[in-house]
């Protein structure tokens, strides 16, 4: 196989983006999957996409728009999901549809070619810049650092939120911190994976890892491995088959999820008494 392609900066950037994006998305994915917040994550992803399009339309940095919209949506969704004044599914669905509507509105209002907007739609890991890599590296470092520093609080909140609150853990702050981390991670990965596909990379590796272990630590490591493998294998498929990179990454992660589910020991839960599955 000809490896000379890796001499080029754009390919080195793509490999780095795959590594960093795979790590960050998979880690926040573990929170989202364990807390059963998939729909909230989808909503934040679409808010980031709408914010980026607003940036493109008005001529400011799309990442800034994505960051503001994703954090704002997390700040709205958190209380809506918590207080239960409206059915959370309904209210999050309304915010989700609003974000999708805004995204199409901003796209429709743009003049001229919409290549950059479409890149945000599908992502383009082969065109990420050094600046994107630096932002992604900082985000990944921050997410991993926060998980290491607050592991026990995060474990308590994502597994037993009401218990965490009852024993004096600042559960609400941790919960919002996780939502904001999801928003920032989505923003940082938007350029390489794309607004429509980013959420699959958050969900699929973590959901696959969830099928394979009862240990949160192992789940984090397995999800990260699946996330990075999805990015790199998708990147290779994109290069070799000349297909869109974002789509290739997402399809790879979905295949991994399918395999993990098919071979999951958790499907044999009834056999617990005979065959310990812990760890």
């Amino acid at each position: 196989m000809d490896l000379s392609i890796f001499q080029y900066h754009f390919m080195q950037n793509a490999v780095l983006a795959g590594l960093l994006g795979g790590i960050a998305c998979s880690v926040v994915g573990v929170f989202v999957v364990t807390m059963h917040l998939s729909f909230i994550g989808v909503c934040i992803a679409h808010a980031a996409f709408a914010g980026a399009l607003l940036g493109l339309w008005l001529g400011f940095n799309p990442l800034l728009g994505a960051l503001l919209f994703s954090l704002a949506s997390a700040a709205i969704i958190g209380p809506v999901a918590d207080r239960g004044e409206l059915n959370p599914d309904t209210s999050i669905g309304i915010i989700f549809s609003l974000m999708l509507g805004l995204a199409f509105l901003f796209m429709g209002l743009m003049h001229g070619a919409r290549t950059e907007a479409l890149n945000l739609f599908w992502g383009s890991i082969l065109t990420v810049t050094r600046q994107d890599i630096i932002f992604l590296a900082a985000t990944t470092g921050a997410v991993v650092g926060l998980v290491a520093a607050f592991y026990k609080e995060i474990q308590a909140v994502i597994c037993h939120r009401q218990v965490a609150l009852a024993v004096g853990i600042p559960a609400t702050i941790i919960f919002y911190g996780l939502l904001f981390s999801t928003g920032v991670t989505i923003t940082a990965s938007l350029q390489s994976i794309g607004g429509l596909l980013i959420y699959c990379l958050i969900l699929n590796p973590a959901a696959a890892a969830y099928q394979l272990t009862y240990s949160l630590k192992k789940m984090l490591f397995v999800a990260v491995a699946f996330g990075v493998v999805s990015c790199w294998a998708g990147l290779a498929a994109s290069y070799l088959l000349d297909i869109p990179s974002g789509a290739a990454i997402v399809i790879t992660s979905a295949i991994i999820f399918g395999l993990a589910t098919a071979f999951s020991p958790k499907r044999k839960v009834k056999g617990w008494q005979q065959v310990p599955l812990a760890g």
Partner: protein
Amino acid sequence: MDDTVIRIKDAVVSYREDVALQGVSLEVRKGEFVGIIGPNGAGKTTLLTVINGLGKLIHGQAWVLGSRLNGGNGINLRKRLGYVAQVENIDPRLPISVRETVMVGCYGRLGLFHRPTRAQWETVDKVLEMVGMAHLAQRPIGHLSGGEYQRAAIARALVQQPEIFLLDEPTASIDQKAQHEILSLIQLIHKQYHMTTLFVTHDLRRLPSICQRLILMRDGKIWQQGSPESMLREEVLSQLYGAPISLPNDIAPLQT
């Protein structure tokens, strides 16, 4: 010397248009075992949430363990209170073991940036032994039966080394044998640690025999209170529940 650990004056709590507590006043002494009974919607759980600082008072005042609750100090107070709720539905695939779940009880007191020590893990193991769950320590928490889950919840509250133990229908939704075992465990703990305990139930058969005082709640108010012997009378209970109540021979204050 004043040994009051809980003092609530004229507490009013409202959830939107529903008033859950209407002018409740209560004092509990250190080491007391108080049973709280009443029909569904009487305000029993809300009273416990006022004590642990999660219920917001719209009127009245509450002092717990010497601190007046002001909405901002609840988090520090909760580190000193053990809380066991009724069995909840839990995802069987949740990535956390029984041992790790019990350790969560220590996390509030441990504080941010501190990891559990070997001594704390040994305490967790000892408490699991005490509640008869040592053999299930490594099992995923979602794989427990209702009774086992409640034992784990009690173990988690115990490793917290609480000064007050709040039990909110801990025997609801579990089978008779498990109910009996949980009640025996709660009584054993109270005898061993002399912890101030508030035990909420709507099931008269599930009142521990060591209950020293019984509070009867109805419509968000304390309707009557007194010794179990004076409260557990058919005419009193029939008025409380709004339906004829006949006391079974095996009612729990006398036998568990």
